[in-house]
């Protein structure tokens, strides 16, 4: 206990004893006037408010038990990419994560063009540059091709709320999925 606290305790005990004495009728030169009582009440309320404020800053301290009923959780394949997508939209890790997302999609698109579509690596890189690897202009643009999206489609995308990074990445993944499959017949259009 610090010296200050001891002093306050002493003052408190003396004040309480004095209070009881006054109630019992002993005159200590103090009258229980309205002003005096009001002063005491205001002091008490002030101190009370301080305590209440302190409560608001104190978190409850209680044991948190785990979830033993659930099996140990293992990640779903690809969850690292989802995490990257989330942080690419965050404020701080924005650019690095976005670069990781685009780089990964780009290399997978190249690999898919080589492995599924039978292209040479240089040809695949050229296709990515021109956007000729897919019929989806959003996906082509996402991987760096300077394909223009028609104004009407742009407005439609904007109105449907599908212009976020996640949606563009989703369309790119869908476009990579289509590489080498039959419904990619339009892929050679441009």
């Amino acid at each position, binding site marked *: 206990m610090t010296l200050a606290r001891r002093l306050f305790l002493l003052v408190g005990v003396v004040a309480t004893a004095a209070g009881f004495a006054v109630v019992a009728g002993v005159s200590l030169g103090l009258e229980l006037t309205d002003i005096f*009582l*009001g002063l*005491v*009440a*205001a*002091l*008490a*309320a*002030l*101190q*009370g*408010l*301080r*305590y*209440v*404020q*302190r*409560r*608001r800053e*104190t*978190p*409850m*301290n*209680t*044991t948190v*038990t*785990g979830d*033993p*009923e*659930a*099996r*140990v*959780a*293992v*990640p*779903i*394949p*690809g*969850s*690292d*990419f*989802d*995490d*990257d*997508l989330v942080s690419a939209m965050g404020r701080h890790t924005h650019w690095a994560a976005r670069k990781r997302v685009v780089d*990964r*999609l780009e290399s*997978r698109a190249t*690999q*898919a063009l080589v*492995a*599924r579509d039978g292209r040479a690596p240089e040809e695949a890189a050229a296709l990515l540059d021109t956007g000729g690897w897919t019929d989806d202009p959003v996906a082509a643009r996402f991987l760096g091709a300077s394909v223009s999206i028609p104004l009407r489609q742009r407005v439609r995308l904007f109105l449907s709320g599908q212009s976020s990074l*996640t949606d563009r*990445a*989703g369309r790119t*993944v*869908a476009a*990579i*999925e289509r590489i080498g499959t039959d419904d990619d017949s339009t892929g050679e259009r441009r």
Partner: protein
Amino acid sequence: MSRGFDTERWTGLDGLVLVAAGAGVFTREASLLLAAGLGVVVLGYVRVAAIPEVSLRIERDLSDATPDPDDEVEVTLRVTNEGSGTLFDLRVVDGVPPALGVADGPARLGTALRPGATATATYTVTAVRGEHAWDETVVVVRDPSGAVESRETVSAETTLRCEPELAATADLPLRGLTSKYAGRVETDVPGSGLEFASIREYRHGDPIRRIDWNRRARTGELATVEFREERAASVVLVVDTRPEAHVAPGDEAETAVERSVDAASVAFSALLDSGDSVGVAAFGPDECWLAPSSGADHRARARRLFATHPAFAPTPPDGAFFPSVAVRRLRRRLASDAQVIFCSPLVDDYGVSVARRLEAYGHAVTVVSPDPTTTATIGARLARIERDLRLRELRRSGVRVLDWGDEPLGVALARAEAGWSR
């Protein structure tokens, strides 16, 4: 009596008491002062609140300590208060092994317990392969007001051991690499066997029953029929148990490692039945090696290994792992004529490089790859594409690959076999 720790639950009540008292004095309202008085009583109680010394005995009973996989096992948890004081607020959370999922009922108990009294909680877990030991049971005791709390752990040793029978539910065809012993793998070596290979000129000492008498009648020359010789293979089943392989398509789904071990145990049994000598290895932080051999003892050893070796546990390992060291060690152990069946989900590029390196060293590699990918999120769809690309890369480099989806292993095998060449 122990004090435990303060939960801070009643912090701030003193403030309310003072505010109420101040307001009571100020307004001359007796009821407010009375309320403040009550608050003082509560504060006094909280001040002296304590919890008795916690002394609990825990017993745990399993309805079946050695179940088969997917069996439901009822767990009965009995908590007895061996202390001298009543525990007014007792919460017990059992330490269910991480690999086991609770199928029914919470694995916890909340009660008040007089000295000597016993409370019981019952729940059901679904058994999976492995040896599962229960963790410590967490006990939380509070005084009736909740002002103080104490957390203790009590342990009662319980182990559930689930060792599936090794059943050959699917027959795994092997590749051409064999040992010098007779077996069932058809080789390109001409000799005695069942499948016709070629006809050559008769040499002195050839068995009479392999002479082509039709040809002799037609041309007058002696010729010997040769068959493809059948030999036994030496196979090592390598299970990918790296932390990267611990993935699953969903929360409650089997992990890729569990499915890999399942595939390995099916293959083990099938190969042993057909006379090949089979070994087991884990490719992960926990080392595990069972040299190729055959016989009933070997089968029993492998069964125990698959079920209880920590390397094959369904929970991700946390030790450090140096994959290139592990590949070198594996290579040293593999005999030059050993085939490898590599069970891996192939969710990263390293699994591919392991298979390709072993293939390059001359061990005919077959990859059995349980598919853990889904299409639930964008990342999951990308992971599926990436895995597909890896399988293609492996196939291109001459490794035989079995892509095992949701269907039973035998079905996946029958489908894949059509596209395999020997």
